């Protein structure tokens, strides 16, 4: 497939996943605030600010808004066109990428993505948000999940599909680390926390809910919510489809489908890095994670995921592209030789 096309498919898929995860974070935080009444401004800021930090956009936010009020943060995360990671921008970017490869995606994908985009652009979106943020966020999540299903059921599972899968799982792994990182302020820098207050338990349940992991977690651990078990579940679970390990395994699987190189072998840096990361997650333990410090561990994990993405770009997308100027020179030199 054309490198440019593959690049667009990959980013379309990443941005859809990003929009969904942002909706998840906002949704859970709003739900959580319903439970904790009588919060003063400082407490509210303490709730919202980590979310901005998790997406890495705090400088931009500080420039756009004087204070981290609930209204400012949700506005920033949901609608703000200048925030490159807002739901609105993510969907617009996904659609722009889809538009570049209209001929390569099924009309079902295009129509659903375009419908979501038109909805977010319409006055109806704003009305629904003002009326019931939960219904609004539910729509975004549902649309993203629907797109996952549409893609699975209508797209031929060829190379382009595997690039879409790779983009989706890379983004989901990254987002899960960010959601997990939201409550790191309540943890010691290194080591596991010794006590877990009721508020802490509520907050960590919210983290699970953000990842649709509450039911699955409960089946395994009952109502006992501890940061260590939550982290273990969201990082290392073999079967849960939003855990980092699961996502990296899918990513690795897609990379190997793209190149045809079997597991435990590699033909480029992307496969080497994803294979290594997968082994770390498969054989790592949650005690090591907390010994290292959860926040630092997650930072490192994000870096490693980023490196896989960069290596993919180098291997498949960024084939010796040269600047127009250099290319003109090459042609002129060539044409002189005859």
């Amino acid at each position, binding site marked *: *497939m*054309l*490198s*440019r*096309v*593959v690049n667009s498919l990959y980013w379309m898929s990443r941005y859809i996943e990003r929009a969904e995860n942002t909706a998840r974070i906002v949704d859970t935080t709003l739900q959580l605030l319903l439970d904790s009444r009588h919060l003063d401004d400082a407490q509210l800021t303490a709730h919202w600010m980590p979310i901005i930090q998790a997406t890495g956009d705090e400088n931009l936010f500080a420039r756009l808004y004087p204070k981290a009020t609930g209204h400012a943060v949700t506005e920033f995360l949901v609608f703000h066109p200048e925030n490159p990671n807002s739901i609105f921008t993510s969907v617009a970017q996904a659609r*722009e990428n889809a*538009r*570049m*490869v*209209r*001929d390569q995606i099924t*009309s079902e994908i*295009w*129509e659903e993505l*375009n*419908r979501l985009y*038109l909805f977010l*652009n319409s006055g109806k979106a704003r009305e629904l948000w003002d009326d019931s943020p939960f219904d609004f966020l539910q729509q975004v999540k549902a649309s993203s999940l629907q797109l996952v299903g549409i893609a699975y059921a209508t797209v031929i599972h060829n*190379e382009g599909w595997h690039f879409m899968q790779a983009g989706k799982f890379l983004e989901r792994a990254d987002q899960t680390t960010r959601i997990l990182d939201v409550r790191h302020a309540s943890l010691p820098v290194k080591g596991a926390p010794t006590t877990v207050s009721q508020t802490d338990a509520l907050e960590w349940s919210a983290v699970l809910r953000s990842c649709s992991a509450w039911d699955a977690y409960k089946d395994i651990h009952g109502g006992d919510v501890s940061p260590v078990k939550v982290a273990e579940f969201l990082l290392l679970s073999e079967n849960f489809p939003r855990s980092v390990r699961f996502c990296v395994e899918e990513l690795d699987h897609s990379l190997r489908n*793209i190149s045809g190189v079997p597991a435990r072998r590699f033909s480029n840096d992307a496969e080497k890095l994803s294979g290594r990361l997968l082994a770390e997650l498969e054989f790592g333990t949650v005690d090591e994670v907390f010994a290292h410090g959860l926040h630092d561990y997650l930072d490192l994990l994000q870096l490693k995921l980023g490196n896989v993405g960069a290596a993919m770009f180098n291997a*498949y*997308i960024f*084939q010796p*592209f040269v600047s*127009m100027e250099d*290319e*003109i020179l*090459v*042609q*002129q030199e*060539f*044409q002189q030789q005859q």
Partner: protein
Amino acid sequence: MLQSYDPNGFFDEMASARGQLRPHYEKFARLFNELTPAEFDEKRRAVDLAFLRQGITFNVYGDKEGTERIFPFDLIPRIIPAKEWEYIERGLIQRITALNLFLHDLYHGQKIVKDGVVPPYYILSGKHFRREFVNFEVPKDIYIHICGTDLIRGGDGTWMVLEDNGRTPSGVSYVLENRRALKRSFPGMFEAIGVRPVDQYPQELLKMLQHIAPAGVMDPTVVLLTPGAHNSAYFEHTYLARQMGIEIVEGRDLVVRDARVSMRTTKGLQPVHVIYRRVDDDFLDPTVFRRDSMLGVPGLIHAYRSGNVSLANSIGTGIADDKVMYHFVPKMIKYYLGQDPILPNVPTYLASEESDRKYIVENLDKLVVKAANESGGYGMLMGPRSTKAEQDQFREAVLKDPRNYIAQPMISLSTHPTHVGDGRFEGRHVDLRPFVLYGEKPVIVPGGLTRVALRKGSLVVNSSQGGGSKDTWVLYGDE
């Protein structure tokens, strides 16, 4: 709903007078009149929504407010009986044959100039005449492979050619999508009325493109080269590529090495043999044409000249689109084919000719003045509807650069019943752009794009200026 339709004295496609339907519209009108206004409205809404959802849109340049719009679609089809279409088809084939002979002659020997039929000045001053390609052999001697000729009908219903679009004409995707929309809206009508299909176009196009592959290539790789997602016709580019099952590429996807063109893929470089390019000559290769082109492929022209890649349309066809050259097409038909033109031209005055120029500047309020190398309804003066200031501006421009201007009498285009809201129908002016493919032999998909000027009284049908479109039905029979 059409019973009370009144053509108001114009030549109307459907009605010869109030309540008097032409025979080829009778079946349609009978079936259509069974609809209630509410049913019609529902169908109309469904189609608009489907177009928006599928992103069947075009981009408007210089429009800050969301660049995509749907091309307004009117549900009442334009109908052409078999006999009339047969005549149009003959006329179009005659014309493209002559144009291709003309272009070949122009780039090889220029007999038509030497014999005094076309003055050399007009060729040499032509903005799109490519000297670099004189004596260059294009594959199978075909220059214009895809032509989108604009036809209009005057006050008495005579068909006339308004312009030949022999560079990168667009609009065919709407022909195909409009038909799909009408099939969904009026499923029962097609069989009952006997409408010829259009959906074979992509296959015919691909067959033509494969036909012009470089010699010796058995299984050619064909690609469509687009300027990119921001081009006004981008929807069409992706649509056609998808229908043909070929890659759509941008300039940056292609690379030239050893005078051969390849595309960059995840599996490395893959050879390309035929390029259906929707990029103008000027932007194709920055080492040859515009140095500042970011859309082109450095080295492409060298590969083309080396015979390793074919282009459709060929380079240098723009000279035939020159509105001054248009004036000479009937003479070309006579010169090359020894025939009288089947489809007449609109009478045209050349500002470079002294007597014509005098007539033009003295009658600016009666004429339509056009720049010789503009398209899309830009650079035009509609005399009878212009202000004094606009006329003065054009007078100055014509006198300053006469080579670049022509004038034609204002033709009152034929009208067609068109929905104007609330279940009411009024006449709106229409034209017709059939698409001619010239490969092994000329092929024309029955019908073409009927464009309609949606504003009351307007004669400008371009999508960028308030135009819409209709499905065009060519019938198997005459009624």
